[in-house]
């Protein structure tokens, strides 16, 4: 992959440093994302897992996950996401759900719905699972299955979404939108109404991992985006008038903004991801940065969160360069996303190029221009075979 560009030497030296550093001010890790596995029956071309996931080490054991859950809870974590890959492929998921409830987490299962059945829904409910988020690829069967790389996915998802509600769970439906499905946003919303969703995330693709690789094929044009937002707003009015409490959350792609998002509410402030092999990250895409991140097999979470090199690397703002350093908005957006800065400029300490003050903002403008006249190239699906190609080339 050639988009990563060059790596500055200071970054590389940083990653080779001793892991312990003087701690900087940090919040509590309120949100723990437990990526239980990289295994997944689907092959979505916008998956946020790393491109080289197939080279990842052995998955944590049940006991190791239980230790992670206990330590994070002790540090103040209240929200727990079971994610992946497809978390349902972990045979110990029910045991982890029980432990989560015992510890007092609000637990969220983030699933494709593939591998779910009535028995598991009842079992998880009894074990204390609080909420299920089901992801869809599109509102119609053909597009959904094309994107998921599976012929039966859509039918299974519909069935499971109905079963989730029948079991009394709050349900979030997540649609990752992109140029191939965003023009059908009305049908997507209609489907969500029919399925009785409590929240609907209409999340325009964020270009990390596999999605960056497929950006040309995924990024909607500005006109597509504006139309989708207008229709979403019309539905909000209609839902309110009908007394329907379903909430529509429309996530704009930051590529169409002039200021970056305040990514993760700041590096190492509230969000903690643990990957299948136990690597701890301040966000789920940080693994691609040339920074050494600690592993829960080696150190306690408390030590990792407060004292590790990786979690302190971009805390606060003394790492910033211009234009961020002297910017009066730096407390608001923290210079944007470190991963995006790294992917698009080659240096994670640069301003996120989404910012119009960035000297690399042209990269974003170029991507917008490409979205107006996309080249017809095939998408790279997220699967083991393609992942091994990335492992070899990096």
């Amino acid at each position, binding site marked *: 992959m050639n988009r990563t560009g060059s790596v500055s030497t200071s970054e590389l030296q940083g990653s080779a440093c001793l892991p312990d550093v003087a701690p900087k001010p940090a919040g509590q890790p309120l*949100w723990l994302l437990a990526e239980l596995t990289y295994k997944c029956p689907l092959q979505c071309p916008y998956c946020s897992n790393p491109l080289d996931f197939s080279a990842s080490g052995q998955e944590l054991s049940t006991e190791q996950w239980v230790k992670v859950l206990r330590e994070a809870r002790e*540090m103040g974590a*209240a929200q727990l996401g079971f994610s992946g890959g497809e978390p349902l492929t972990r045979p110990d998921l029910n045991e982890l759900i029980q432990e989560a409830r015992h510890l007092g987490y*609000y637990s969220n299962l983030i699933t494709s719905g593939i591998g779910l059945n009535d028995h598991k829904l009842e079992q998880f409910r009894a074990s204390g699972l609080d*909420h299920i*988020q089901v992801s869809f690829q599109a509102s119609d069967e053909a597009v959904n299955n094309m994107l998921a790389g599976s012929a039966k996915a859509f039918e299974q998802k519909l069935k499971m979404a109905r079963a989730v509600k029948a079991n*009394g769970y*709050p349900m979030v439906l997540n649609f990752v939108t992109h140029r191939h499905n965003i023009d059908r946003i009305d049908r997507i919303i209609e489907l969500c109404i029919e399925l009785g969703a409590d929240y609907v995330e209409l999340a325009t693709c964020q270009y990390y991992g596999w999605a960056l690789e497929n950006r040309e094929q995924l990024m909607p044009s500005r006109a597509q985006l504006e139309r989708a937002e207008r229709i979403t707003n019309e539905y909000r009015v209609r839902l309110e008038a009908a007394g329907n*409490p379903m909430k529509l959350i429309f996530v704009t792609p930051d590529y169409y903004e002039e200021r970056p998002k305040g990514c993760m509410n700041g590096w190492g402030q509230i969000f903690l991801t643990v990957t299948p092999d136990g690597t701890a990250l301040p966000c789920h895409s940080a693994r691609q940065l040339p920074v050494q991140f600690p592993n829960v097999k080696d150190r306690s979470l408390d030590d990792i969160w407060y004292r590790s090199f990786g979690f302190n690397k971009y805390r606060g703002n003394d790492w910033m360069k211009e234009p961020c350093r002297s910017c009066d908005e730096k407390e608001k957006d923290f210079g944007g996303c470190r991963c995006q800065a790294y992917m698009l400029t080659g240096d994670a300490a640069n301003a996120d190029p989404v910012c119009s003050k960035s000297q690399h903002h042209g990269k974003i403008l170029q991507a917008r221009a490409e979205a107006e006249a996309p080249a017809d190239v095939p998408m790279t699906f997220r699967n083991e075979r393609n992942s091994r190609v990335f492992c070899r080339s990096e």
Partner: protein
Amino acid sequence: MSNQRIPGFNPMFRLQWEKAQDSYVLLYPEGMIKLNPSAGEILARVDGQRSEAEITAALQQAFPEADSLAADVCEFMEVACEQNWIRFHE
């Protein structure tokens, strides 16, 4: 508005004492609302069984030094209902 109405939680929300926040919180899909002390004390007595009048009486007993709480409780119930945290059964 009758104070005989019975508030119960919207199943979307879970109330919990959160040691790390030193307060009651409402947890919901991927989010958390930190409650101020009086909101927390009121919601902690919402169980889908007791009426607003009974909740008010219980609070009055727990905080004997407080003036009449009925108006405050009623006002908060309206807010909590608007926020969709609770629902009423008559």
